[in-house]
């Protein structure tokens, strides 16, 4: 049971990517649609009286509509060039009936109108799919870059924090998490200094968000002192944040070091 579901998923996955299976399917469906389109003439030619149904000799608007499947599929899987090529081929396939066979009024006009809609749908599908794939690739690349950067930050000896314009801590590296009892997504002044409002003179967030860098000394209620260095940073969502590097310079740990 599970195996058949897996096989079905694998088949579906193979048919939604450009490969020999999807190409074969496209040719088969397009070929069958073509055969069906001229089935009336084939039946007539071979004199198969038993299958000479009226439906095969009626207005071919429905017969033409079946071509929507291969055209849209071609656009979705193979892109703009194949969608355009198949649309041209399909139109060329329709023309002999429109010129020589169809006894109904305006066969060329009806065929042109259909192709305008079907070809348009195929091309729009191709363009939309291309844009979607491009965006997905860019997002993956962006996330990979972010992971790489976070991996680098995690390995740093200094503490690193990313603080958003709303004073929320977006990220803290491992070292800082060990030293400071703050949690991500919480307000920095509340979590780090136990205040109910931003730090005032000791806060450089507004300046940093405008594009300048800042360096100051950061004293916590427990007596520990940090040398803070902040610069602007554009996060993955496009929001400018403050990237802060905090170095522990508590006098007990660094007795010879002068404060900033």
């Amino acid at each position: 049971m599970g195996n058949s579901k897996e096989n079905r998923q694998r088949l579906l996955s193979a048919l939604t990517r450009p490969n020999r299976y999807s190409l074969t399917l496209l040719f088969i469906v397009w070929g069958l649609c073509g055969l069906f389109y001229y089935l009336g003439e084939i039946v007539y030619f071979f004199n198969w009286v038993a299958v000479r149904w009226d439906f095969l000799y009626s207005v071919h608007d429905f017969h033409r509509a079946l071509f929507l499947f291969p055209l849209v599929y071609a656009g979705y899987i193979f892109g703009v060039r194949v969608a355009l090529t198949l649309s041209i081929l399909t139109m060329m396939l329709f023309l002999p009936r429109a010129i020589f066979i169809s006894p109904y009024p305006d066969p060329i006009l009806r065929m042109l109108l259909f192709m305008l809609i079907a070809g348009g749908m195929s091309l729009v599908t191709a363009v939309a799919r291309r844009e979607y794939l491009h965006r997905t690739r860019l997002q993956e690349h962006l996330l990979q870059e972010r992971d790489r950067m976070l991996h680098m930050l995690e390995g740093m000896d200094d503490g690193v924090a990313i603080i958003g314009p709303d004073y929320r801590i977006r990220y803290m590296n491992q070292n800082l998490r060990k030293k400071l009892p703050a949690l991500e997504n919480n307000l920095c002044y509340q979590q780090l200094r136990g205040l109910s409002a931003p730090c005032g003179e000791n806060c450089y967030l507004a300046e940093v968000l405008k594009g300048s860098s800042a360096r100051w000394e950061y004293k916590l209620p427990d007596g520990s002192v940090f040398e803070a260095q902040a610069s602007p940073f554009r996060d993955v969502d496009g929001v400018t944040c403050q990237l802060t590097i905090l170095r522990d310079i508590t006098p007990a740990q660094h007795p010879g070091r002068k404060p900033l």
Partner: protein
Amino acid sequence: MEPERICALVILGILHWMLAFILLDDMTRRQQMRRRHKAPWVILIVSLVFIGSLVYLLCHPGFFYGNDDDQT
């Protein structure tokens, strides 16, 4: 000849040359294809309306993948 048929033949001509242009452009990009192998394909695509192009597409599936590799 009726004007509608003339119109259809003009459309067929335009479509044929559009398709030929796309396929010949694809052929010129193919580095694996030898020059002497290209000439028969050019004649086939240009002279045989619809059939020539269809045969070229069936013999060169690389066209669908946008690469030079027909073994895919």
